[in-house]
């Protein structure tokens, strides 16, 4: 499954651990929420970076105390129809000011990219190679956005106000 980061397909430095896989010596690891919460301090003491795979039905608040020490949060789309992780992503970025990698995992398809970018995701485990290759092109599909979100893209309402004021200057 190709990983897209910074708009490019790249190798994944993280190794995903299951609940019971032994922790490797060094290297970056992505661990399930349950395992992470069970031994957060132990895991964070390791040499590599630590990321957490957070299920979409668990309150993100539980992760908040660790946000400044973890390198990645992987949110899950069990199917592309299940949109809970969009709310979790926005909460992480906009309420808890999480600045690390925010990764979309699960059934991640081309037609969700724009929504995901707007919700604050910056890394994508894309299901299909063709979709991963089309990432940059797809991300540029829209130039107009109606809602303010943490991604900072200017909203239509705001742009109109700017236009109004700039017109006002000349007259």
């Amino acid at each position, binding site marked *: 499954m190709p990983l897209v980061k910074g708009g490019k397909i790249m190798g994944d430095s993280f190794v995903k651990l299951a609940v019971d896989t032994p922790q490797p010596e060094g290297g970056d690891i992505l661990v399930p929420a349950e395992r992470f919460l069970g031994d957060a301090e132990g895991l964070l003491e390791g040499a590599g970076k630590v990321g957490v795979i957070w299920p979409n039905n668990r309150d993100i608040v539980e992760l908040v105390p660790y946000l400044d020490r973890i390198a990645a949060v992987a949110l899950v789309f069990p199917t*592309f*129809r*299940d*949109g*809970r992780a*969009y*709310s*979790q992503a*926005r909460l992480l970025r906009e*309420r808890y000011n999480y600045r690390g990698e925010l990764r979309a995992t699960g059934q991640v*398809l081309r*037609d969700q990219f*724009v*929504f*995901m970018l*707007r*919700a604050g995701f910056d890394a994508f485990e894309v299901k299909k190679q*063709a979709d991963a290759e089309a990432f940059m092109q797809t991300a540029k*599909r*829209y*130039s*107009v*956005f*109606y*809602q*303010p*979100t943490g991604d900072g893209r200017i*909203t*239509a*309402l*705001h*742009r*109109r*106000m700017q236009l*109004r004021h700039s017109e006002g200057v000349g007259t």
Partner: protein
Amino acid sequence: MYAYDEIDRTLVNERVSEFRDQVKRRLSGELTEDEFKILRLQNGVYLQLHAYMFRVAIPYGTLATNQLRALAHVARKYDRGYGHFTTRQNIQFNWIKLAELPDALEDLAKVGIHAMQTSGNNMRNVTSDQWAGVAPGEIEDPRIWSELIRQHTTLHPEFSFLPRKFKIAITASDHDRAAIKVHDIGLRLIKNEKGETGFEVLVGGGLGRTPFIAKTIRHFVHGGDILSYIEAILRVYNQYGRRDNIYKARIKILVHELGIEKFSREVEEEWQHIRNSSLQIDDEVIEDIRSRFTYPAYEKLPYMPDELRQAAADPDFEAWRKNSVAPHKVQGYSIVTISLKPTGGPPGDATAEQMDALADLADRYSFGEIRVGHEQNLALPHVAKRDLPALWKALDKLGLATPNVNLITDIIACPGLDYCSLANARSIPIAQELTRRFANHELANLIGRLHINISGCINACGHHHVGHIGILGVEKNGEEVYQITIGGRADENAALGTLIGPGVKFDEVADVVEDIVEAYLALRERPEELFMDTVKRLGVEPFKERVYATR
């Protein structure tokens, strides 16, 4: 009228190109049907019994004449020459080809019409009072706020994959023509004691297999806070709404399971986090939206023009005027409702020729504006009273002057088994038969206001629960069986109807309705006591007795 600016046009065009690409990938096999399904639904495309059905949004029910002509064009070029107006200010085309859909969308985009989120588990078309901006006594034009919310809910990055569909309706009049109490969120525009605009917010209404009347979650939300408050409701719903069972996924179930107190506490907590954010709307933003709504330059006209006085001698004109013409907030003008319920016709259908002709009439007599109501009728919102006789003649020629608005033959019906893949029973033929039974205008007038609603399955697209007489078609042992309820209503006193007894067969439905009507005529205390009031006073029992005595 709301005029799109370059920003709105750009977005709609970008959406059309995106959908064109999605259709291309589906046709090439790159997308599976399962993957494509949700993408097409997000753009109003259903797969029905015989063909794809295409649902186009008419936000808050306002159409300009060039838009109505574009809908006629789509009906003619891509469909079979007609369209079907729905109960949520949409129009549906029933015979569209997938490969041609992007072109149809592009043609509509040119006049500022789209089909975004007219289906799928997202925020649907924002609906409002079809008399918005012209109804006497209205607090203010609710379409300004409808448009604000339309923009905010369009392609929302967080709420495009909700547990289930989500519908918002807004009214600003005491008499609720937008059925806000049967919506996921209902907004009643009000003023607070300081004279500031805000909303009473209702939540958790809906029909379907588990009907609920919406409950008030907050008595006053300031207009400037309305986007953050809606966002808070949606965030709670997106995270906690059920996704394990499609029949329990609507917000009404969450509200019911948590209870309105607990639900409102959750919303309140979320709202406090986001209330003072960029979601706050200041007056300047509202003014900007308001400035892109244009209002007619009304003339100063007499209350009773000579033309109207003279035409009063014609009983057919008078019958139509008394039935279909309503008072306007400006003296000398009227609101004209155009019945799409001709005797023997499917409710809500209009041909391309009718749409084109109506656009011409609207240009001539209604400042180029047409409205669409949830009762599946149209309206011309600004007709000078002196023009009423001429307009009536023109409408009559088009078959659009049936004087049955709000009467027993003004039936709301879903497409039913004639089109819909979900239906268990036919709806349209029942409606057609009833319009023939009660075709006599004097009889219908004698009966007075009476709404019949017909749904062809438990999903309740015909809103049968809130019909004064509700008819629900179900399937029993391979046969169509119809359950009859009475006493429902969708207005400010919204209530769910009560079942009168065992279901009846297709052939018996019209007879049963006749029995109910006869019972009402015999039971009412005086001619002014409407069917609804008689049912309220006496309950279901006497009607039940009458219907089942001989069956």
